[in-house]
């Protein structure tokens, strides 16, 4: 995401962190019989949240900590709620500037005052002892950050103080349910995660071929920097993914090789549901060929959203 350092306004359209077609995915998963699901690249954990409602055990994983904290808030959390005391603690003296920012990298994403708010709130949230309530507070701050990037100078008059936005999000936050299952969220490389995951189904939406380097340019960019309190983390993450899914690759052959490497570690999981959205680089048939190296494809579901700008032809391959 490109931010004008003087004005603090995003100079690009607000990108999405992970394009998903949740309704389509859920309508397919509803037809499958499974009690537990492992999701190695969970991103925004909406799918896990829904599956919890259906009584499934959900094992979420993402290499990015922002996604991990979001998943802890909505998936791993078995009913903890953010209390008024927590909110007061999180927003305490949020606009009071200190001598310097604890996380100076925030100034590259936000205007001066906004950076102070995000910096102070991060430090306040660390004082919330319960990890799931802390996770809830963090997921609300992600929403506040997205809010900031929604505005342009033309729409600036509609912008509200960030603490008010935090409160508005808190009042309308999603219901957290306890489905009686031991759901958990992990922050590991996906290959390590699936090796230890014991689940009846794996749902995977593979990282795009441009990998973490491209993800860094989306709203995930500031979220990760804010969560970790460190701007250099992206360089480390990108370097660690060399030769694995999430790496930035230049060819179809290389990408399919990485997909194959990943799937080879998932053989112990009984059923796979692989979501693929065609974007001109790779067809569903090509992904299907790689999958068939490991097991037979039972059925492929397709939903074509490509009649509108931004829509895509989407497939869910069950194997």
């Amino acid at each position: 995401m490109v931010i004008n350092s003087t004005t603090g306004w995003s100079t690009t359209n607000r990108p999405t962190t992970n394009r998903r077609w949740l309704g389509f995915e859920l309508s397919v998963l509803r037809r499958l019989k499974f009690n537990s699901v492992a999701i190695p690249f969970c991103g925004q954990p909406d799918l896990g949240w829904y599956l919890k409602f259906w009584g499934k055990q959900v094992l979420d994983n993402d290499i990015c900590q922002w996604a991990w904290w979001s998943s802890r808030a909505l998936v791993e959390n078995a009913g903890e709620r953010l209390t008024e005391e927590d909110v007061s603690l999180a927003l305490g003296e949020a606009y009071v500037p200190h001598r310097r920012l604890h996380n100076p990298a925030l100034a590259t994403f936000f205007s001066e005052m906004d950076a102070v708010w995000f910096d102070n709130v991060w430090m306040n949230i660390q004082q919330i002892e319960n990890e799931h309530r802390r996770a809830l507070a963090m997921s609300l701050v992600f929403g506040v950050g997205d809010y900031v990037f929604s505005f342009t100078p033309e729409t600036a008059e509609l912008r509200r103080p960030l603490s008010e936005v935090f409160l508005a999000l808190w009042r309308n936050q999603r219901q957290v349910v306890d489905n009686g299952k031991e759901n958990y969220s992990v922050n590991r490389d996906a290959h390590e995660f699936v090796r230890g995951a014991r689940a009846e189904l794996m749902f995977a939406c593979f990282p795009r071929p441009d990998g973490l380097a491209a993800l860094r340019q989306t709203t995930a960019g500031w979220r990760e920097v804010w969560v970790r309190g460190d701007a250099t983390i992206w360089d480390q993450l990108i370097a660690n993914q060399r030769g694995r899914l999430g790496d930035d690759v230049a060819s179809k052959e290389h990408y399919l090789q990485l997909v194959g490497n990943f799937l080879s570690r998932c053989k112990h999981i009984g059923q796979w549901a692989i979501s693929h959205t065609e974007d001109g680089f790779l067809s569903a048939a090509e992904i299907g060929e790689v999958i068939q190296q490991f097991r037979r494809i039972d059925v492929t579901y397709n939903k074509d959203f490509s009649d509108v700008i931004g829509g895509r032809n989407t497939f869910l391959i069950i194997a």
Partner: protein
Amino acid sequence: MQAQQAPLIFTETERQAGDRLLKMALETDRVEGYTEPHAVMIARLAETIGREMGLHGADLSALKFAALAHDIGERGMKRNYLLSPNVLTWEERLDLWRHPILGEQAAAELKLSRQTQLLVRWHHERWNGLGYPDGLSGTAIPLGARILCAVDSYCALISQRPYRDSFELAEAEQFIADLAGIEFDPQVAQVLLAVVGEERLRREAEAARQQQEFAGWNIPASLSESATPVAIVEMYEETVETTMESVAEALPAEAIEDTQANDDVEAAESPSVEQATEEQLAETPSPAIESTEEVHATEQDVPEEFSPDQMPTAEFPAVQAPTSSRTETTETEIPEPESESEAAPKVQN
């Protein structure tokens, strides 16, 4: 709202599908418990917003059709909780969240364009990604769906619902403004607020002007609550003519001549009786001219067929013989109408 009151016009190519959708939309509104034509209201407003934001041709047609068909999925679900006065439980909400997908399927059966089908599917997607069914966020949601989302919410707020009263227009605007950047695209919210805000200000200024106009009048109770200002004006105008005839019959010949002489004198400088009546009805009548002999004469000579409710009262402007002194009094006492921006509160963004 101007956009809501303007007729929903279909082009020649839109007409066949449009008329069919219109009927279905009214049926859907009934299923959802709307007491007003909600879908039509949305279609009108969405068309206005869409045009303001540069949509045209097939894109604008798709938006209009999607607005009419947006809740067509609920029609098929026939859930009792839609008419429940209670807030929905989470289980009911999750069930209801299927309706955009069912709506997309119903739109496909109706052979509406794929774009229309997708707009129906995504009309509950929220800017922050917490909508349904696909959890799209930001500009990944097509503009038409972002417009539908904001307009649907606004129109629902100003409508009476089984579980709550309707919001005041200004409250609904504040609601939209507060959620810009959270649930609604700020650009869409801005255009929506400009369109409905402008219309609300115009209406409030008109209402204030009419209130001022009728302030000195003793409007009969039978009229004041049920009749519209226009109807009241028309009724008073009829009464004015009848009363003037009665006055003329009751007065001695000299008095009539005097009055006519006065009228002639005033004719060059001030409006005729009829003109004065119309113009004064349009502005504020002057309480300063209440106690005149003509008024008493009028009361005494009111024909029996006038019911008490219709009886002209002391404030009745018909007896304001347009003498120069009265005209001056009227002019000096009529406050200058406030400008629109002063008369009505501004939209609080």
